[in-house]
């Protein structure tokens, strides 16, 4: 049975706003969604369940990313044609990834990818 979100068990909105503030800074600073810190913070500080925390954070990313994209756009730091091509690719990719996850989503993949990311980070540091 899907648990419908009731109005009785909402976490403190002030705590959520502070979590959103931190995620917004991270999002604007690095061009990412901010879910990386929002989801664990919502689970640990606001006592939300993992599934509900990720669904809720995703919705708040829409206005957060829109503000960031607007500020970057004003400084000519958004490549519109590139964004259009990336959107098409990523919308297809997300479907493929969601289909693949129950089939190959295990720890080895995660560890392998984490090591790959360390390689990318080192390349960005020395380039």
């Amino acid at each position: 049975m899907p648990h419908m979100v009731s109005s009785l068990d909402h976490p403190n909105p002030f705590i959520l706003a502070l979590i959103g503030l931190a995620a917004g800074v991270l999002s604007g600073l690095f061009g990412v969604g901010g879910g990386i810190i929002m989801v664990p913070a919502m689970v640990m500080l606001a006592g939300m369940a993992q599934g509900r925390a990720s669904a809720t954070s995703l919705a708040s990313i829409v206005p957060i990313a829109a503000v960031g994209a607007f500020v970057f756009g004003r400084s000519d730091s958004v490549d519109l044609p590139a964004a259009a091509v990336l959107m098409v690719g990523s919308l297809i990719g997300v479907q493929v990834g969601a289909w693949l996850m129950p089939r190959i989503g295990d720890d080895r993949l995660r560890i392998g990818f984490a090591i790959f990311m360390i390689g990318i980070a080192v390349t960005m540091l020395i380039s």
Partner: protein
Amino acid sequence: MTLIEILALFGIGLTAGVLAGLLGIGGGVLMVPAMVLITAFDQHVAQGTSLLVIIPAAAFGSFTHHRHGRLALRDAAALAVGGVVGALLGSVTALSLDEDLLRRLFAILLLGIAARMLLTRRRAAEPVDAKPT
């Protein structure tokens, strides 16, 4: 844009989407370094472009969650109130930073995410739409 660039960006978007779906991490973390290292985008342009790409992806994903009754709109609104203020502060700060410094700071963020991925096991095996308890 040349045909090569179009193909490269399509491949970056596709790969970032697959990995985001597979690993449960956002596409931006993957797209930004790919745009910088593969298509030689300026760090600022890579980040600004990533933010724009994230919008429809997040909107589409949260609409799906909303239909399944998993989304607490009131909580999302509280997050967004702080979030838009933070996004304004963060993006204005990013634009004021030198490109090399911003790229190195981004690399440190990647190291942090990689460390967390190595330390938290088993999350990837859980379905994305796990029912809240």
